């Protein structure tokens, strides 16, 4: 187990730095000058004096050779120093950490919604196979899978606005300060994220449960005269949930990185919107730090799922 963990952690670090290096190279290939976009808006006729532009480039270290920029970034990133934002000059780590609680809050809420809705819906769909209830559950699941989260977000906004003339609050209130206000603000954005996950989890739970329900040991349980509830919850579901847990773990990792568009749609100042805006502004340090963090989250979620899987399923040995 220990050897497995060490090996996976080392591989994880390599993966994260691989992502970071790729990001570094790609951002330099994409056209756009972070200094220029921070200083002027030529689309409204603004121009910036050459001296100011050069000074800004020097300040951002963009005047140095690419290899030197990369080595500096690499050396600093080991100490978790990701530099300053070209748009406003704030420390990237501070700015990211300030936005992270909102994104984590949303990801956790979306995860809870996924578990609370996706798994029961999958169970219902399986035990009521080929009934209207199953069809409804399958329609919901397919909708979740086929509708991108930004589209769901737009639909939610339109419905809330046209029917209720209401939108979630503009000021973020942490859950521990005012749980009700927090939930009121983040319920709908989280649902926009969760809807797709619900689709995945419902489908996975359904197919996995259907498979398990056809196993010999379930037939034995029926023949023993056990109650349906006991058979489904104690015998079938425990086994059927193993692949679902894998999916859920990965979804949580992706949720942290996948909030980009939903946060932008609801104007939530989270880490996702931070990355989205940084990409438009070519804010290299923010993009690199954000993708570094996302890669880290996904890698850790993967590792956690593997460990959890082994813990839940004694047949799996981590070697």
């Amino acid at each position, binding site marked *: 187990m220990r050897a497995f963990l060490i090996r996976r952690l080392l591989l994880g670090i390599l993966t994260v730095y691989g992502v970071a290096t790729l990001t570094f190279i790609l951002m330099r290939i994409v056209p756009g000058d972070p200094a220029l976009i921070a*200083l002027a808006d030529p689309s409204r*006729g603004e121009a910036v*004096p050459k001296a100011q532009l050069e000074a800004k480039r020097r300040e951002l270290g963009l005047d140095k050779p690419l290899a030197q920029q990369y080595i500096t970034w690499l050396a600093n990133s080991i100490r978790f120093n990701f530099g300053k934002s070209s748009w406003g000059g704030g420390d990237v780590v501070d700015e990211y950490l300030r*936005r992270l609680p909102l994104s984590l809050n949303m990801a956790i809420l979306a995860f809870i919604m996924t578990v609370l809705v996706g798994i029961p819906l999958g169970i219902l769909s399986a035990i009521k196979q080929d009934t209207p209830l199953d069809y409804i559950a399958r329609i919901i699941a397919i909708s979740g899978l086929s509708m991108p989260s930004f589209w769901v977000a737009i639909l939610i906004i339109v419905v809330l606005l046209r029917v209720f003339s*209401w939108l979630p609050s503009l000021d973020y209130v942490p859950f521990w300060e005012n749980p009700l206000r927090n939930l*009121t603000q983040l*319920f709908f954005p989280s649902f926009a994220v969760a809807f797709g996950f619900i689709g995945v989890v419902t489908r996975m739970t359904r197919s996995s449960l259907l498979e398990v329900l056809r196993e010999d040991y379930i037939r034995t349980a029926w023949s023993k005269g056990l109650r349906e509830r006991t058979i489904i919850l104690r015998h079938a579901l425990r086994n059927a949930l193993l692949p679902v847990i894998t999916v859920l773990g990965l979804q949580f990792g992706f949720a942290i990185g996948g909030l980009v568009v939903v946060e932008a749609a609801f*104007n939530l100042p989270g880490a996702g919107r931070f990355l989205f805006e940084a990409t438009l502004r070519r804010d290299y340090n923010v993009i690199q730090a954000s993708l570094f963090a996302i890669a880290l989250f996904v890698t850790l979620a993967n590792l956690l799922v593997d460990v959890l899987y082994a813990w839940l399923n004694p047949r799996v040995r981590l070697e």
Partner: protein
Amino acid sequence: MHYRKARPWLRLFPLTALLGALALLMACRPAAAPTPTRAPAATPIPTAPAPIEATPVIRIATPTPTPAAERPQYGGIFRTHAGDDLVHFDQMIQTTVRTQQRVGPSYNRLMRFSFFEVGVIEPDLAERFEVSRDGLTYTFYLRPGVKFHEIPGVPGSGTDLDCPDVKHSLDKYRNPDYSKRAGDVTAISSIECNPAEPLKVVIKLKAPDAAIVAKLSAGWAGIIPSELPWERMQDTVIGTGPYIWQGYTKGQKSVSKKNPNYWRKGLPYMDEIHNFVFPREEVAFAAFRAKQLDMNSYMQYIYPSEAKILKEQHPEVIVSLPPRLWWHYVYGNLKSGPWSDIRVRQAFNLFIDRPKAVEILGEGVGDYGAWQPPWTKWSLPRSELETFVGKKDSSDMPARRERAIKLLQEAGYSTSKPLKMVVDALNTRESMLTPTYMQDEAKKLGGLVELTLNPLDRAAWNDRLEKRAFEMQGSGSAVAPLIEPSLFYGNYFPCNAPANYMGYCDPEFDKMFTQLLSELDEAKRQQLVWQMERKLLTDLPAIPVRWVAEGMAWWPWVKNFKDVDPAYYNNVTMEEVWLDRTHPGYPR
């Protein structure tokens, strides 16, 4: 199969979930607003620009707040927005509207544009001023007893306003290393103070400048304490204005609080201004409709189609769509490629149907003309203007297209060898309109011109512009801060102009421009401007397409606000604005 039997707890699950979601939704819904007791005055959406005074009227008297029809109320938090995040707070470097709107309420200027009348300049920190006979010396007399905001730890906090503060601020304004608008005030040679008369400011000019007072009244000409180093303006906001800066949270909002010691007694009315960050305009518009904002932003204005939505769904909302100092144009690279051929430029000028552009792109609101706002006296007389840019009813378009075809044929293009150009287009909603329209118009020439749009995000678009790596630019657009003719040329057409991306350089034009800066006689200035307009419409370094009219919207509980600033930058202090918190629709 037994396991298909549903248990009651399973059967009830969907219903419970549905009821739970519905209950949460209902809890989120605000209490139904009672029907307004009095119907607010209907605000028609203007379809044609109202005339604007071409030259600012300078009123040398203490401004009196326009008496509101109702009794002003104190208190309340004013919620608005100003688009994207700030890079920093220095309004002389970040001259965009999003900076002016956020930091503007903290500053005063020597003089200011009236909040209630278009094109009227009133005293602000200066009680009055005098001009020497030769127009080279301006003496401003400051108000006594004006103090800077008290912000602990900030240099100059709580000090008295005097001449060195003004000198310190205006020296920054005219220093190109610390001000993006330094080019506007190059006429100033020195700003002088006399320790014996601390409230007297003497500004000396190298050459007369007809617009110097207007330029000193612009939004970014705010006065800061002399103790504050210029660099600190990027992270500090301190002035003498009606609201004291409390802070800015990136990605969220800025907060300013009422200045209890504001020198204009009894003002301001509101307790706080919260200015939210909305990078996406459609999200901001939704927030406005949900009453999360009291007013929309100059930065992300209301389109005529949105104004219609507001009037249909929220008839109580006040919408104004006045003409602005914002114009759209297209241009190419004069140094190389097809745009260097005058016949190609003439053809483009001929085949673009401008009245239709106003109808389609401006949704019927706005105007078209040359480089001076068409509703001012600086614009060429309409009859002459139409010979260059087409008739109002588009009746001359068939003939213009014929002439365009002829010119292109003379330049060597044919249907088998069409003129092919790549048009860079900024991929925002507004900026895609003109290039898309031009592409459609070009198709009417029977395959003689093939334009390929190259949509780019802002960073890539800026990059190609700065490197002059474009063949043609379809998203040319510019904003002037004041109605002053030199400001519609200065940034774009003189040889060394900073935004002269097309590469136009004509000594004759530059000579006329220099002359315009120092000419004080209004009639002579007008003649000179007309000459310059003719010159640009003949040389055609760029093709003007249309002038924009764009909207502001505010809820009826926002009182005493008038949308009188055609330039976006100059009506930002909000000191006269108050909130009617007894209004039945006011969100509590």
